[in-house]
């Protein structure tokens, strides 16, 4: 086996085994800190040894055994495991989870612990990417544009809270499960969105590393909770957005809106997988949640060969369904965009203007108004709205696109 093959084997093992190794260590030693460090050391040992010794026949088992030894070494080295510390051990609930269709996988406990509602959202995101995703602290810091030391502190603080407040290491009860799963999905969607519409003037407009990681983790959750409709919905939604990645930004770094995208550049495999998931959820015949509806809307868009073939009445009907679940002004704004195609820009503008109080500081509100005003031939008002949208937008590609549209008025 040559160097490149060993390197590939290590990368693959990291991708496939990291979360399992951390989770197994967390169960065994009742401490996330020890689990994380032991897993990191096991992978470092693999990098050192596999090129000389060869890749073991079962890399996962090798890594788990090695991590276990590293953890015991550390505990012996510190040898300060007095009663107090034992007491502070993370609580491990030995009861098998109730039969929810969920696999009793250690990784699931890890995910629910990292996404616990008592942790701040930014801590949940960081902890999930570190413990479940296996990203380094430096990588996570880069992804969210903070100093590595600050990100390290955030993760350390979160681990200290888990330990000090005794956030349990378990799959939530059936009663709490839907809310807790939805908390996990919110974390994954946030990671995805940060990749999909990255903020900051120095970053790439689309951060493929983040969207890919979010999709990978959502696939993992789906494998662990296969019967949850919202998990399937979120995965479908991400896939259908990711499928359009190559067509979304022009070579000059400008965001291309859906109607102007080269649909031949969409990733047909991802579109097909997204559509398959949406059909699976439709066939299930259960009332869809937010992500499933959003996925269905994206399925309608990606089913049209040309933007003009879009079934807008279907899109508006889905938004109506979404408004009933989530009456937020942002959903109402997106619905208005679809209404413009179905009932014309004047009707849509009236709906958008009703949101003025709530969305005055939201760039998409002004961008939407600007487009509608332009279509209605009200150039001056349109220009003012574009100006405001450009002021508020954080994504470089989006700013470029808004600027072009304004300058073409």
């Amino acid at each position, binding site marked *: 086996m040559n160097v490149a093959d060993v390197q590939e084997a290590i990368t693959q093992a990291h991708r496939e085994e990291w979360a399992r190794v951390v989770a197994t260590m967390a169960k065994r030693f009742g401490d996330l800190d020890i689990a994380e460090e032991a897993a990191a050391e096991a992978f470092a040992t693999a990098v050192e040894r596999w090129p000389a010794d060869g890749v073991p026949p079962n890399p996962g088992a090798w890594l788990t055994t090695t991590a276990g030894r590293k953890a015991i070494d550390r505990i012996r080295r510190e040898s300060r495991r007095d009663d107090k510390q034992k007491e502070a051990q993370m609580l491990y609930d030995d009861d098998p989870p109730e039969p929810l269709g969920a696999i009793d996988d250690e990784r699931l406990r890890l995910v629910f612990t990292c996404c616990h509602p008592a942790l701040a959202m930014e801590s949940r995101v960081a902890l999930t990417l570190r413990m479940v995703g296996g990203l380094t602290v430096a990588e996570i810091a880069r992804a969210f544009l903070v100093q590595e030391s600050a990100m390290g502190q955030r993760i350390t603080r979160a681990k200290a809270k888990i330990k000090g*407040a005794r956030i349990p290491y378990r799959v939530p009860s059936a009663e709490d499960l839907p809310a807790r799963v939805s908390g996990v999905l919110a974390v994954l969607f946030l990671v995805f969105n940060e990749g999909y519409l990255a903020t900051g003037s120095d970053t790439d407009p689309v951060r493929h590393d983040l969207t890919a990681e979010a999709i990978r983790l959502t696939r993992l959750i789906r494998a662990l909770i296969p019967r949850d409709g919202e998990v399937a919905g979120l995965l479908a939604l991400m896939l259908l957005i990711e499928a359009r990645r190559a067509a979304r930004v022009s070579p000059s770094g400008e965001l291309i809106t859906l109607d102007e995208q080269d649909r031949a550049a969409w990733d047909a495999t991802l579109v097909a997988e997204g559509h398959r998931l949406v059909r699976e959820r439709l066939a299930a015949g259960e009332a869809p949640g937010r992500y499933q509806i959003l996925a269905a809307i994206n399925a309608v868009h990606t089913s049209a060969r040309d933007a003009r073939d879009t079934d807008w009445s279907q899109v508006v009907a889905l938004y109506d369904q979404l408004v009933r679940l989530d009456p937020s002004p942002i959903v109402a704004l997106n619905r208005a965009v679809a209404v413009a195609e179905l009932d014309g820009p004047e009707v849509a503008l009236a709906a958008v203007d009703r949101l003025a109080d709530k969305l005055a500081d939201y760039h998409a509100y002004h961008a939407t108004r600007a487009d509608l005003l332009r279509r209605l031939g009200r150039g001056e008002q349109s220009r003012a709205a574009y100006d405001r949208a450009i002021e508020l937008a954080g994504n470089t590609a989006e700013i470029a696109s808004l600027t072009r549209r304004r300058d073409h008025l």
Partner: protein
Amino acid sequence: MQYMVSVVDDKTNSATPDEMTAINAFNDRVKAEGHWVFAGGLNSPATATVIDNRGGDALFTDGPFVETKEYLAGFWVFEAPDLDVALKLAAEGSKACNRRVEVRPFL
């Protein structure tokens, strides 16, 4: 494991009769379920005295150690196996007393 659940308020002894009924019912249940350690309401911060005897010469200062609009108006101490249980109890407590509460684990 014990958790302190602090009740946040900007008034003292301000529970309405309905709230008192709900609090008593909640307390009875907490006792029956074995989570009860202690609970109490506190008089207003204006009745507090700060004592500094670090130098061996006790200094008394009228008032709370920090003036805030909202303050600790009362608290529960619960026995609970983990934070999930403590959060559930705290959520029910918040509903019963109709105030915001804060949960903190003991060391």
